[in-house]
């Protein structure tokens, strides 16, 4: 089911090829191009049933009654479940705060909340039966923004909440609040020659992974269940699923099936508990596959945000102070809102040195769709605002916007507003220099010598809306900072099991982790690490499951660092065992066994001088070395609840973009012509994959700059565009050339010096595009995404 191993042409030869630093190809590539790779929605089992979810049509309502009789009477229907059918004391789940009902209990808090489940022998039968469940709702008043959430007498989303944030939030409809106080803002303001302020709005973005939420639950003879599912963190799922099923964790066996993208949208549970409940009730395997409409309700989104920023600077451009307030809409359930607040607050000043800072960040409970993790995780919204501020400040000072940024850029040794020192390279100014130094793409590329305009190169494209008239160009820059790994004192460990043995005369390593491969290429990198550390060509990647310890989440740009670190650590321990055995078995034949630094290379034990002491076959014979070990990065600390001070982060990732856009000012259409990126990755373990991550992340940032937004009706809190017809993501026509400049400045604290890659490019891409549109049009544009009406004023 899960792809393993490596293509043959990569494993040949006696030298250990395919190690770190090479662009080895994906081990699952062949399966993915032939259609054989088994995604969660491809799972199949003899006699399986199809599950379907009935969801709330209202954003806030009391459930007066539920009548499942008619649905249950339908031919082909095996089960209909509601909250009353939940088998255990535990009825709620949640990543951090267990506030989310597995099925709604007496009340729905957002549009699309799951209310009931159906299992039937055909997906259409299940859908039609769900439509026959009679639910009587009584609508309740809505809470949709900060004003309505904190108004006197506002309905509370979670009365009597007793989570660990409850005591310090100023209102029960505020999930978490994190202030940061650093230096003396009044003194800074007094020194400022120029002060600029801005109010910014960031729209709700969807992860829009292409593989819908899906999985297959198979009931087992021991009363447990086997769940095959697409997720980002198997063990976190398990921790949330088992209590609601009333089963011990060892009776819920999870295996990762093929994952069609994630981007944060699979951190929270979707169909996992539901499929298991139906399978345990019916005694039959149950498959659930969301369609795109349901997928828009089936996962959390990126927090929409309102941001107020004030920056001051001296006449020569030195920043004097920052005051900012960031309000994130967390929607009906907590999801990962508290951690998103921590990120937005601690990175709210951006990659700049500012001595005097006051930041307040909070997340609301509202009746809007729940929001949680998406690539960039709180740092994205802040970057959009502080980078707009940098341009505004540069204009007010009459300075070049890149020079202003470079003048204030953080570097190694700079101190964040949290008081934490940046103790690894921070080449912010250099990244900007690199994108700026690139030659600009030629102007008026739609023109051909003498011929008609190639409309494909113009805003509006084949819609043939312009032949170049009314089209203006703009160039914009932005840079951002993202933390890597889980922060604020979280025990962010990973586990790897590595087995080394000789089979058929050839040494073979097996790497087993629970890491969710969601497309990022972690499995490619794990095989590379094993080849480098163990000097073997053949590495098999075991399917990810819960039979091995937790790998933590495929989130926060952390897996290459943390699970990569765990694989490296386990390989090193295996290597030590091999050398121990070699010394015991063969030490008397050569003094170098005792005296030299020994390595594994090309299937052999060699001295650092290159002398071969023995083959692995000679050392190991029939023996198997098999170790499972945990690995941790440096610990972090929580942020102080009043001052926000603390060494909260383990590593940072920096990227800069230059966007070149052409805007049809009459119709408000934007074409991004080029989106250049420069990023420091510490060490590119797989350069091809690194560039792919940067280009993909940049494109998601472009999407939320010019098209992507979940539109929630403020009057009803209902989602108005839950489809790919109405929620647009960039096509190949919307996406420009993305030249990438990769720096490799090692972080000495990290394995191989590497730096997490995936998220940073999503930060600066959006503000760079916005800056370019502002430069082209002269408009202020304080919200993203920019829509045509914002450009034409219509």
């Amino acid at each position: 089911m899960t792809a393993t191993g490596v293509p043959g042409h990569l494993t040949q030869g006696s030298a250990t090829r395919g190690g770190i630093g090479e662009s080895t190809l994906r081990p699952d590539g062949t399966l993915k191009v032939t259609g054989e790779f088994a995604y969660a929605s491809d799972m199949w089992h003899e006699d399986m049933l199809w599950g379907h979810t009935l969801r709330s049509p209202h954003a806030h309502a009391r459930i007066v009654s539920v009548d499942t009789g008619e649905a249950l009477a339908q031919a082909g229907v095996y089960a209909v479940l509601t909250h009353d059918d939940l088998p255990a004391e535990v009825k709620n789940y949640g990543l951090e705060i267990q506030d989310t009902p597995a099925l709604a209990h007496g009340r729905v808090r957002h549009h699309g909340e799951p209310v009931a489940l159906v299992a039937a022998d055909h997906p259409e039968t299940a859908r039609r039966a769900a439509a026959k469940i009679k639910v009587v709702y009584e609508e309740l008043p809505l809470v949709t923004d900060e004003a309505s959430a904190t108004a006197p007498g506002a309905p509370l989303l979670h009365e009597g909440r007793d989570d660990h944030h409850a005591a310090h939030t100023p209102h029960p409809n505020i999930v978490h609040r994190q202030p940061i106080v650093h230096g003396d803002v009044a003194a800074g303001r007094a020194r400022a020659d120029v002060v600029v302020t801005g109010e910014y709005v960031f729209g709700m973005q969807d992860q829009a992974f292409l593989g819908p939420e899906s999985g297959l639950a198979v009931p087992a003879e021991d009363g447990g269940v086997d769940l095959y599912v697409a997720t980002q963190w198997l063990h976190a799922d398990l921790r949330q699923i088992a209590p609601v099923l009333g089963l011990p964790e060892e009776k819920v066996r999870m295996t990762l099936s093929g994952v069609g993208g994630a981007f944060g949208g699979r951190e929270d549970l979707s169909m996992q508990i539901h499929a298991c409940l139906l399978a345990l009730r019916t005694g039959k395997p149950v498959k659930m596959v969301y369609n795109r409409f349901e997928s828009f309700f089936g996962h959390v989104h990126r927090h929409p945000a309102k941001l107020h920023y004030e920056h001051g600077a001296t006449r020569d451009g030195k920043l004097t102070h920052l005051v900012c307030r960031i309000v994130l809409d967390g929607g009906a359930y907590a999801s990962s809102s508290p951690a998103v607040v921590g990120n937005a607050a601690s990175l709210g000043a951006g990659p700049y040195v500012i001595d005097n800072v006051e930041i307040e960040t909070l997340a609301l409970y509202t009746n809007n769709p729940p929001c949680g993790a998406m690539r960039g995780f709180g740092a994205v919204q802040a970057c959009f605002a502080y980078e707009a501020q940098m341009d505004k400040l540069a204009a007010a000072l009459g300075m070049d916007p890149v020079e202003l940024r470079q003048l204030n850029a953080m570097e190694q040794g700079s101190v964040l507003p949290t008081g934490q020192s940046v103790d690894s390279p921070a080449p912010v100014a250099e990244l900007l220099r690199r994108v700026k130094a690139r030659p600009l793409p030629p102007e008026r590329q739609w023109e051909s010598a003498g011929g008609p305009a190639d409309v494909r190169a113009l805003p509006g494209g084949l819609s043939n809306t312009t032949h170049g008239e009314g089209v203006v160009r703009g160039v914009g820059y932005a840079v951002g900072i993202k933390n890597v790994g889980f922060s604020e004192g979280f025990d962010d460990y990973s586990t790897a099991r590595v087995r080394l043995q000789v089979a058929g005369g050839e040494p073979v390593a097996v790497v087993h982790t629970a890491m969710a491969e969601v497309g990022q290429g972690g499995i490619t990198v794990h095989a590379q690490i094993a080849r480098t550390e163990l000097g073997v060509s053949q590495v098999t990647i075991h399917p990810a499951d819960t039979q091995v310890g937790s790998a933590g989440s495929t989130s926060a740009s952390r897996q290459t660092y943390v699970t990569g670190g765990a694989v490296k650590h386990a390989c090193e321990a295996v290597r030590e065992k091999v050398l121990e055995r070699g010394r015991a078995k063969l030490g008397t034949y050569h003094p170098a066994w005792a005296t030299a630094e020994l390595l594994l290379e090309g299937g052999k034990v060699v001295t650092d001088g290159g002398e071969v002491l023995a083959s692995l076959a000679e050392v190991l014979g029939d023996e198997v070395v098999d170790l499972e070990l945990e690995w941790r990065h440096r610990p972090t600390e929580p942020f102080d609840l009043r001052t926000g001070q603390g060494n909260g982060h383990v590593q940072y990732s920096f990227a800069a973009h230059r966007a070149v856009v052409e805007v049809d000012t009459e119709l408000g259409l934007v074409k991004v012509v080029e989106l250049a990126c420069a990023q420091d990755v510490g060490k590119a373990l797989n350069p091809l994959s690194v560039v792919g991550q940067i280009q993909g992340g940049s494109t998601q940032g472009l999407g939320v700059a010019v098209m992507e937004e979940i539109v929630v009706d403020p009057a009803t809190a209902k989602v108005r565009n839950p489809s790919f017809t109405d929620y647009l993501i960039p096509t190949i026509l919307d996406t420009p050339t993305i030249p990438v400049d990769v720096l490799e400045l090692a972080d000495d604290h990290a394995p191989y010096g590497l730096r997490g890659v995936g998220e940073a490019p999503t930060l600066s891409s959006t503000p760079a595009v916005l800056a370019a549109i502002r430069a082209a049009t002269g408009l202020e544009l304080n919200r993203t995404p920019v829509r045509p009406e914002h450009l034409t004023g219509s």
Partner: protein
Amino acid sequence: MRVNFTVNGRRQEADDVWEGESLLYVLRERMGLPGSKNACEQGECGSCTVRLDGVPVCSCLVAAGQAQDRDIVTVEGLAALAACRTEGGDCASGACGTGLDEARQWRADPARGTDSQTGEGTELSPVQQAFIDAGAVQCGFCTPGLLVAADEMLEANPSPSDADIREALSGNLCRCTGYEKILDAVRLAAARQEGTVSR
């Protein structure tokens, strides 16, 4: 109802098909060919792209009954189709193509164990190989649809410009790659076909 059609060069028969089922559903759930993907099921993303009598279509928008007596090529048949093109054979005759039994061994059945296969040694079409080599595959969910669309474009236009590639693939959404490496892959496949770049 019963649907008779040709899938990847072989005559096939699907029984007990409900009239509301799409061609995509029949391929995935009744033929054991899950390569065509179900990302939106509303004709917006192109991940279910197959060729219907040679023309790329979103199979989620084709009613199963409309496939009666038609020729379907899915991602599972691309390698055979490419081999057939090279040999100048007649693909519709059933002389080449992937048999259903052969294809069904790919079926994702956890009861058969979760042991892996790498697909090592599998025969690939030039465009499939180019997607792997150029790094155009990340999560891979868009890949089957893109491959069918790209293969058809290269059949009609062996030397496409970048604008041609973008236009031909504009109906296929990808969320992972930013499309750069997909462009690279199609350029690479075109160059290899023309013999200007070797494998």
